[in-house]
């Protein structure tokens, strides 16, 4: 395999042995970007110059006898809602098209301290709202397994970049499945950590009580390595957990014997593509073969997760996105030609022009759900449902070590296939959303294919059960070949590649 196809831990091994330099690896990844980016369109911003500087710095350190950590010198991409000091952070929105933060997100700082080489900022659904990256205000990203298909969303750019070798790993954010679903669609590993395990400081907020940053990697070991680097308490985020974090690679034993695995029947019912169901059931059998104890179980409030989420997330979003008003930074609409406008008109024009349709839809939903007279009927009721969903999980985790399900009810879909109907699109996250509502960790890893398109297996664990998650995922992964497959970049987009209209 070529350098860009390797995992972080493989590259780290080569660096250690002197078989490659960080600069060479970085060159290989940028060469790959030049080779395939016009077809994949994963990047909003490429930061080649600073990447080489960082790579050279790591090489220098190594030459001088320092032993940098396992991620040092490895090229990584960042979803474009993670603030990067001096580098534009757009959230794939017109609203922030020219926003250059004067600060780094805590995860960016931590990775930089670990010696990461940042390749650039990755495309996403605008403000992380969407499941296909078709909501990017700039251009859609394509699935490297078949260019006519979406990469999932909202971390679609991150997932596609990692799958296509345009970054060795990436950080995404997951509010309702935005790491796991694209990981599933692109055939890679994606982890949504426990709420509070990873600092959210510097992550442009979508829904604060649900958002969590996590890794998108080529395999489970990389996932553990990246989690090691980004987890831990941050005094800048009061919701971050004040606990010490273990070395997650210590859980990668290859053993799954005796692990109690729950399979909620509600995740295998109506709406699940039978071909996906078949692949996932086969994966569960594989776990059994490895000695896991598998048992069917019930998740009674599963059907309420989606409506509950579509009250809470938009409610928080409506408030979080109120700051984009054209007053201090970001996009400001001009008055109508030759005219003038007052403050209210400036607000309205700015927000009308700066936000895309999905963002507006959710702001309106959220504003409505929080307004007086509807608060009790919607928002408060959703909070109660959220508690019931948490309790369902608590009960399940009294009985099981992990719970498994498909990550997405369908394989990747074609561009435009669901974009016209938001409700159909929302169903794409039906299995991932309950996890965010409960704040527990979950991971998606490749478990097979449907007609050449990847299918993901979702594994859930109790709060701060990342170790268990990684252990089970690693045991499964090591007994199957799916993580070794690399996408062929085949097929043609429905239409000619859209010219990048982005910044």
């Amino acid at each position, binding site marked *: 395999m070529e350098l860009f196809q390797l995992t972080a831990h493989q590259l780290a091994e080569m660096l250690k042995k002197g078989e490659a330099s960080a600069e060479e690896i970085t060159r290989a990844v940028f060469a790959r970007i030049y080779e395939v980016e016009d077809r994949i369109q994963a990047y909003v911003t490429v930061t080649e110059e600073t990447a080489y500087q960082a790579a050279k710095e790591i090489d220098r350190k190594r030459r001088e006898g320092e032993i940098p950590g396992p991620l040092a010198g490895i090229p990584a991409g960042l979803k474009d809602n993670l603030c990067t000091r001096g580098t534009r952070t757009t959230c794939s929105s017109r609203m922030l098209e020219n926003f250059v*933060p004067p*600060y780094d997100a805590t995860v960016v700082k931590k990775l930089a301290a670990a010696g990461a080489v940042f390749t650039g900022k990755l495309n996403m659904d605008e403000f992380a709202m969407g499941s296909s990256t078709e909501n990017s205000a700039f251009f859609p990203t394509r699935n490297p397994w078949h260019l006519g298909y979406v990469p999932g969303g909202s971390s679609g750019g991150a997932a596609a970049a990692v799958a296509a070798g345009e970054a060795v790993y990436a950080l995404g954010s997951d509010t309702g499945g935005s790491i796991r679903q694209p990981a599933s669609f692109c055939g890679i590993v994606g982890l949504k950590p426990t709420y509070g395990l990873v600092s959210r400081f510097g992550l442009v907020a979508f829904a604060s009580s649900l958002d969590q940053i996590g890794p998108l990697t080529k395999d489970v070991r990389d996932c553990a390595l990246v989690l090691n680097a980004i987890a831990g308490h941050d005094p800048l985020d*009061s*919701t971050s957990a004040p606990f010490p974090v273990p070395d997650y690679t210590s859980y990668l034993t290859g053993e799954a014997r005796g692990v109690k695995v729950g399979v909620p029947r509600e995740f295998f019912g109506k709406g699940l593509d039978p071909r996906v169901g078949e692949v996932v059931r086969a994966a569960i059998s594989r776990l059994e073969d490895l000695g896991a104890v598998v048992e069917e179980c019930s998740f009674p409030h599963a059907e309420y997760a989606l409506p509950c989420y579509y009250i809470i997330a938009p409610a928080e979003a409506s408030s979080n996105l109120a*700051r984009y*008003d054209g007053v201090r930074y970001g996009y400001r609409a001009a008055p109508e030609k030759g005219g003038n406008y007052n403050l209210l008109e400036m607000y309205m024009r700015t927000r009308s022009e700066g936000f895309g349709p999905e963002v507006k839809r959710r702001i309106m939903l959220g504003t409505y759900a929080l307004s007086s007279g509807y608060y009790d009927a919607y*928002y408060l009721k959703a909070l109660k449902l959220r508690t019931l969903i948490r309790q369902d999980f608590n009960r399940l985790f009294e009985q099981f070590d992990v719970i498994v399900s498909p990550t997405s009810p369908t394989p990747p879909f074609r561009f435009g296939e669901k974009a016209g109907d938001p409700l159909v699109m929302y169903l794409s996250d039906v299995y991932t959303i309950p996890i965010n509502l409960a704040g527990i960790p979950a991971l998606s890893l490749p478990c097979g294919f449907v007609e050449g398109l990847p299918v993901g297996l979702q594994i859930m664990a109790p709060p701060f059960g990342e170790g268990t998650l990684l252990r089970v995922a690693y045991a499964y992964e090591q007994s199957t070949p799916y993580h070794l497959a690399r996408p062929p970049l085949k097929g043609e987009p429905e239409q000619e590649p859209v010219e990048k209209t982005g910044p």
Partner: protein
Amino acid sequence: MMAEYEAVIGLEVHVELRTKSKAFCSCPNVFGSEPNTNVCPVCLGLPGVLPVLNQAVLEYAVRTGLALNCEIASFSKFDRKNYFYPDLPKNYQISQYDLPLCRNGYLELEVEGVKRRIGITRVHMEEDAGKLIHGEGEDADCSLVDTNRAGVPLLEIVTEPDLRSPEEARLFLEKLKAILQYIDVSDCKMEEGSLRCDANISVRPVGTNVLNPKTEIKNMNSFRAVHRALSAEMARQCAIWEAGGRVVRETRAWDEEQGTTVGMRTKEEASDYRYFPDPDLVPIVLSSDFIARVREGLPELPEARKQRFVREYGLPSYDAGVLTSSRPLADFYEACVRGYPDPKTVSNWIMGEFLRLLKASDLEVAETKLTPSHLVEMLELLKEGTISGKIAKTVFEEMFRTGKRAREIVEARGLVQISDEAELARVVDEVLAAHPGVVADYRSGKEKALAFLVGQVMKATRGKANPQAVNKIIKEKIQ
């Protein structure tokens, strides 16, 4: 027939806390800096940043709640109050809604000798917004935003509608200010906006319990303005009822120049703030240990100090009340008494000259050049007869103005009192010789004539003569 009405007044007081840093970031919390210099991404609400509660804010809020006899919630949270405004960086304000930190407190007032208990509905924490500076002249079509104040910690103190007159409202505010200063949570400078007050007022016939529609008065920026605004509004409402009309529920602004309240907006279009729990901040859970620790750290409050002044210094209740009305004043008094243990004399000087000069120069105790040791030194000069009471006043004024010591002033200006009888007798002789008519008047029984003659001697000695001695000498010489 206005006397038949009483007011029903409730106050909403906003107090800026004098913590070192802002409520949710480490920016300095100071007044008067260059615009937009005390700001960071957090208080500007830039994308991606998160608020983290300043623990001092919590402690100050608990201190305030305890001083106002409130229950302190062991579980509380922050909510977002959503509204668009150009000086509100996030377009929501972090505040507290249904679970305020403190509630059900009270503050006791003495109004015309009667003790009154004014209920405190709630005390909650929130962040301040920035400030808009509206352009003038050529810039009249633009407004500038200064975000230095954005994120400054505020307490909102809401009273029950227990106040019955504008005077009570003023007394309440004075007492509240004294308490807040005693517990050192705010400098309470109304002119700098660190204490702001809105008032709800309705009127009703005395002896009834009806609650008539109320109006909310804003824009009052001094205690005097609160008193005037409420009096004006009370008169306005009474006149409406007297004329058979109906007061409408609305928000009114106080127009200081016109001395009237002016309608701003009717309450019908009440804002929908879409409050919901702020997901960026964890709930506040307070242990009883923490609350007990804060309670132990509370200083002696004004009421207790007043009682002690009466007990310990034998002062009249009135004196004790005035002296303890502010902590710096009470501290000043006690420092003076320690140096010059004649409590009533010290009280007279502080309540008389000191307060008069403070008021005339519009200064706070801490801002003057006069220290307790200045006053003590002057009182000693007075006691030993080096200066007269009249000279003392002159000396006091100069000490106040310049910060010079009493002895220095007396020496530099040659103000030492003349008590030497021979020297005084010589001056008296001159005065008597110059005013034979007045001397005759005195002899014919006009007592006032004596005062004139004494005055002439004082004038001749430029106030340095010992008046008692002069009196004595004149009487001896004339009789």
